[in-house]
């Protein structure tokens, strides 16, 4: 027997699949989040330089990573949608955007809360902070573009084109902002070099990152479920479904 994954590009099948996995996904994200916060706030030792203030890392770093990954995922689904012309890809793109914007806002706000005690300022014009702010602007532009177009088909395609066009620009923007201001902290986890953090801190960070992944998936799938219902409101299977829950 072969597993036909293309089946799930059809909205009713996708609806049934995500309805089945959503409860588990929400439970996993809750468990990971609680475990991550307990490890990070209760078990992990204080930092030599930053004292207990460094614990904002468990919120800030996962949120920053998710904000970037979600924009890439949006661009990926935009490309898939434009090439294969599948409505579900556009719906996924649409479902991801609000969570991405929320993650970006959380990353900026928690970064400000970290910056105040460590650098003495809520905001510094550092390359990474500025790029994150630009990313928030791009998310807001995507949301505004979606809200401004009434025809859902055109809104899908317009947002997909904008997502692709802007994702190509993001590296250029980052490069120019870095050129403009090379003043910034080294990355928290440098590749190929042993991270300068204890095992418990690393465990907390891994748990919180996984929690952010699970949460983003659960939230966007929940939103996707509603989008499918909304877009397919006139089809037989949705009428049957809503008739059943009456």
């Amino acid at each position: 027997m072969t597993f036909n994954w293309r089946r799930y590009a059809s909205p009713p099948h996708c609806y049934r699949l995500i309805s089945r996995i959503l409860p588990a996904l929400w439970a996993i994200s809750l468990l990971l989040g609680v475990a991550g916060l307990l490890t990070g706030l209760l078990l992990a030792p204080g930092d030599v330089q930053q004292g207990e203030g460094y614990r904002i890392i468990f919120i800030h770093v996962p949120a920053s990573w998710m904000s970037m990954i979600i924009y890439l995922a949006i661009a990926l689904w935009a490309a898939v949608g434009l090439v294969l012309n599948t409505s579900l890809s556009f719906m996924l793109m649409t479902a991801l955007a609000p969570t991405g914007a929320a993650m970006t806002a959380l990353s900026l706000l928690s970064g400000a809360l970290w910056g105040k005690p460590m650098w003495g300022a809520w905001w510094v014009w550092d390359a990474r902070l500025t790029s994150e702010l630009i990313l928030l602007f791009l998310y807001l532009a995507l949301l505004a573009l979606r809200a401004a177009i009434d025809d859902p088909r055109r809104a899908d395609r317009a947002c997909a084109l904008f997502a692709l066009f802007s994702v190509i620009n993001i590296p250029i923007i980052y490069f120019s902002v870095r050129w403009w201001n090379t003043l910034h902290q080294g990355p928290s986890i440098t590749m190929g070099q042993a991270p300068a953090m204890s095992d418990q801190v690393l465990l907390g960070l891994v748990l919180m990152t996984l929690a952010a992944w699970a949460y983003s998936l659960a939230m966007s799938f929940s939103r996707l479920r509603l989008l499918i219902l909304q877009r397919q409101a006139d089809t037989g299977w949705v009428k049957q479904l809503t008739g059943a829950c009456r």
Partner: protein
Amino acid sequence: MNWQQWRTLCLRDIRLAMRRPGETLHVLFFFIMTVTLFPLASSPSATTLQAIGPGVLWVCAVLACLLLLGELLESDWRDGALEALLFMPLNLPLALSAKIVARWLCGALPLVIVSPLLGLQLELPASVLPMLAGTLALGTLALLFIGAPGAALILGTRNGGMLLGLLILPLFLPVLIFGALAVAGAQAGRSVEAELSILLALTLLTVFFSPLATAACLRLACE
């Protein structure tokens, strides 16, 4: 699509703009007025003006380009000329590049020409003024090309003008940074070869790729 057709399209837009000089002058005066606001809002001292001068001129040029882009396709879209263009046996990206170049010649070049005067007003040394005009000339061309897909996306949307700024201002950032850095570097007596090369590279890249994106966005708007 050959050179003759491209020139005809470009000249058509230039002629249309000449017939309605109000629009060109409107953007020009907007540029002059916004630049004038800065000394009034901060301070008229030479040191302040010299420090903020390059940035102010560049930001005002960016805002003026936003105005130009709002009108780039709008009137042609309203009277159906764009849809006619879509059905002509032409290469659509090339045809659009003719429109953008025409818009640059009629709308942005006047800004570039008056920018040295405004530079003098902001107490910039005379030796910097050629650099200012040169980077603005290159930069506004790049800005118009970068913004063109956005201008096509907002056709027929609610609050299109407001949306346009939200969509394309973040994408203007690299050109703004390197343009303003080149002027400020020349002012400080630094070598600005690197900034100029990057500005030129950005311009060439956008001139090449943006008409393709604009054509895709336009096809969507005219479906």
